[in-house]
C-alpha cells in the first residue's frame, strides 16, 4: 500500500484524536499520559473556548516541561471558573494574585527558580484579553522588555466576559458589548481603536510570538510546545470564542473560531525576534459575513436595518490582514 498523507480537514472536524497516526505524531491531548492540568468539573459555560484553549495549552506545556510547570493566572473567567476553594481544577502548581500583574508574578517565580537552581521548572502566565491588552499591559510589556523566562498566553475572547461582556481594547469594531451598545448611527464598538497585541509583542523583539485558535488544536499544541522549547519571554495569543458574550451557539465555538481564521480576520502566524516566520494559510476563504452573521453581537449589522457599510469596513480589515500576512496561497487567491 502506497504512502497516503492524512488530511485532517477531510474529516470536517480537524479531529485531534487521530488514532490513524503513529503514536509520535499524535497530539498531547490524544495521549494517555496527558496531564489533565485543568481537570473536569470546573464551572465554565458550555462551549467555552477559553476552557478548551487553556486545557490544550497547559497540557502541552506540561508535556514539553515533563511536568515541571508552574502556572500564573490573571483575574478573569479562567481564574473564577476553575478555582473556587476547595474545588480547584488545577493539577499544576497555580497562583492567582490580582487582575493586572500575572506577568510580573510569573517573573518573580522564574527568578525564584533561577536563584534556586531549579532551571527545569518552567513558568506559564495566562490571562484573558482584558488582563492582557488593558490592565496587565504594563506588566506584560515590562516582562517582555526584560526578556524574562516566561511564556505568556492570552486567551482572547474579545471583551470582559467575567464581569458581563464589557468592551476591552481587544473588542473588534462594531461588536456589541454592554459598554458599546448597538445604538446610534455607528452601533457597537468604534472603528479605528483597539490594540494588536501579537504585533506589540513582536515589537519587543522577544524570541517567540504566535497566534492560534481553538479551531486548530494541533496547531495550538505545536505552538505551545515550540514556545516551551525556547527560553526568554514568549507570547501566544489564542482566539477563544465565547458563546455567552458573542451570542453564539455552544456547539459553534470551533466553527466560529475557524471562520475567524478562514475570513482573515484573525491571522494565525508565528514570529521570532520580531519577524514573521510562518503563517497558517487560509484553506477556504470566506467573506466576513459568514463569520459575523452567526454572532448576536454583530446582529445589528444585518436584519431589518442593516449596516452594509460597516460590514464592508470589516471586510477591509480582513483583506488587509490577508495581504499583510500573505494568508492566501497564490493559487487559492
Amino acid at each position: 500500500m502506497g504512502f497516503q498523507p492524512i488530511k485532517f480537514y477531510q474529516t470536517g472536524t480537524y479531529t485531534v484524536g487521530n488514532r490513524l497516526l503513529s503514536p509520535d505524531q499524535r497530539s498531547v491531548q490524544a495521549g494517555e499520559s496527558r496531564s489533565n492540568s485543568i481537570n473536569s468539573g470546573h464551572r465554565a459555560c458550555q462551549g467555552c473556548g477559553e476552557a478548551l484553549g487553556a486545557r490544550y495549552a497547559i497540557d502541552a506545556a506540561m508535556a514539553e516541561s515533563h511536568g515541571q510547570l508552574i502556572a500564573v493566572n490573571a483575574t478573569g473567567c479562567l481564574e473564577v471558573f476553575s478555582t473556587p476553594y476547595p474545588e480547584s481544577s488545577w493539577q499544576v502548581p497555580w497562583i492567582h494574585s490580582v487582575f493586572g500583574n500575572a506577568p510580573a508574578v510569573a517573573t518573580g517565580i522564574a527568578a525564584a527558580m533561577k536563584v534556586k537552581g531549579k532551571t527545569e521548572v518552567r513558568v506559564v502566565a495566562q490571562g484573558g484579553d482584558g488582563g492582557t491588552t488593558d490592565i496587565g499591559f504594563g506588566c506584560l510589556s515590562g516582562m517582555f522588555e526584560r526578556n524574562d523566562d516566561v511564556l505568556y498566553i492570552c486567551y482572547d475572547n474579545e471583551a470582559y466576559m467575567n464581569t458581563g461582556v464589557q468592551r476591552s481594547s481587544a473588542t473588534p469594531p462594531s461588536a456589541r458589548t454592554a459598554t458599546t451598545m448597538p445604538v446610534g448611527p455607528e452601533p457597537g464598538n468604534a472603528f479605528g481603536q483597539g490594540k494588536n497585541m501579537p504585533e506589540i509583542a513582536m515589537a519587543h523583539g522577544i524570541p517567540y510570538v504566535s497566534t492560534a485558535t481553538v479551531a486548530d488544536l494541533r496547531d495550538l499544541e505545536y505552538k505551545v510546545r515550540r514556545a516551551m522549547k525556547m527560553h526568554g519571554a514568549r507570547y501566544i495569543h489564542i482566539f477563544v470564542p465565547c458563546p455567552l458574550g458573542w451570542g453564539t451557539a455552544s456547539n459553534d465555538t470551533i466553527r466560529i473560531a475557524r471562520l475567524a481564521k478562514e475570513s482573515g480576520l484573525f491571522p494565525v502566524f508565528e514570529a521570532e525576534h520580531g519577524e514573521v516566520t510562518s503563517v497558517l494559510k487560509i484553506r477556504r476563504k470566506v467573506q466576513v459575513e459568514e463569520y459575523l452573521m452567526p454572532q448576536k453581537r454583530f446582529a445589528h449589522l444585518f436584519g431589518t436595518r442593516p449596516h452594509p457599510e460597516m460590514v464592508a469596513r470589516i471586510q477591509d480589515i480582513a483583506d488587509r490582514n490577508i495581504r499583510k500576512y500573505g494568508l492566501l496561497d497564490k493559487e487559492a487567491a
Partner: protein
Amino acid sequence: MLKQIEGSRAVAEAVALCRPEVICAYPISPQTHIVEALGEMVKSKRLSPCEYINVESEFAAMSVSIGASAAGARAYTATASQGLLFMTEAVYNASGLGLPIVMTVANRAIGAPINIWNDHSDSLSQRDSGWMQLFAENNQEAVDLHIQAFRLAEELSMPIMVCMDGYILTHAFERVDIPAQEQVDAYLPLFEPRQVLDPSEPISIGAMVGPEAFMEVKYLAHAKQMQAIERIPQLAAEFRNTFGRDSGGLIRTYCTEDAETMIIAMGSVLGTIKDTVDEMRNEGHRIGVLSIISYRPFPLEQVKSALLHCKRFLVLEKSLAVGMGGIVATDVRMAVTGAGLKGYTAVAGLGGRPIFKSQLHQLFRQAERDELPPVTFLDLDWEAVNKQLAREKQTRRSGPVAENILHDKGIVSAKFG
C-alpha cells in the same frame, strides 16, 4: 563593624546580610539609594545567589515579590510615597496570601501637591493592609529592624514594612554598627515557606473564597498580628543576646518615672523630642516620651501601661486623617479608653516641614498647661491659610491652591531655621 555610613547604604548592607534571593527595584525618592546599593552588590556577586530585577513600576515590584515569595524565595523591595500607593492592590494581595515579603518604606508625603519630603502619610495609608509596620528612630535601628523583620515575617508568614524617615534617615550619614554575617546567620534561619509553588506537590494559591470562609481568613491575618505582639519583644530580646544592643520591640519609654505629660511619636522626630524633654527635665518639668516602634500590630496594652500614670498625653504625628485629625492619636486614645487622661494631637512636619526644638518647647508647655485644642497644626501659617480661604470666598475661579499659597509666601527656602 562600626561604619560612618549613609542610612540607605546601611540598610542595603543589612538587607544583604539577610541573604534575600529576589530583589525588585523601581526608582522613587527617597528609597533609591537602598536599591542602588543592593543592585551593585548583586552585580558584583558580593550578594549571591540573588536575582535583582529592574521592574517597570512599583505595582510590578510588589507583584514580582509576590511571585518570588510564593515560589519559596526570600523577597525584598523598597518604595515610598506614590510608589506605595501605586502598588497598593498588590500590597493587600501579598498580606492576603500570607507571603512574608519585607519592604523598606522610606517615608515620604503623598501628593497632590507633589512633595518628595518626609512625613508618614504613605505607610499609614496602608494601615489596614495586613502588613506589619515597624518604625525606626535612627539608622542603627533601621538596620536592626530589617534583620528582625525578615525573622518575624517568615515566622508568621506575613509581610512587614520597615519604615524609616525619608531623607532625615535615608540620606543621613551616621555611625552605624553593621553586624557580621555570622551573627545574622545565627539569628535568621533559612526561609521555610508555609506554602510554596512546587511541581512535585501542586497546590492552588489565591483562588476565589466566598462568604463561607472569607471572615476566617481575614481574622487569621489579625490573629497573626496578635501573635506578633508576643513575638516582637521576644525577638528584640533575642536580638540583644546575639548582637549586644537594644533595638526594636513594641514601644520604648524615656523619662517616664513621675511624668505627668507624655509625648508620643514615631520615627526620627523622637530625637528632637528627647532633646527637648532633656532640657525641660533640667528645668524641672515632669515630662516623658513614649516611642511607638510597632505601629502595626498596635500594642494597645503596652501603650496603656506606659500612659497609665500620667495626667495627659500629646501625640505628635507626621500624618493627618483629613476630616478627623490624628491617625496615630486615634489608636492611642483607643489604648487609654476610660483611663480619664487628657489627650492632644499635634499634626507636624507634613511634607518635610522642619520640626524645631523651639517649637516643641512651646508646644509641650502648652500641653502641660492644658492650653491646647484637641488638634493642633504645628507651625501652620494661618495668614496664608486665611488669605486663601478669603480668596475662595471672593471669586469662583480662585485657581490652584498650592500655587496661590506659594505665591503669597514668596521665596521661602531661606525661611527655615
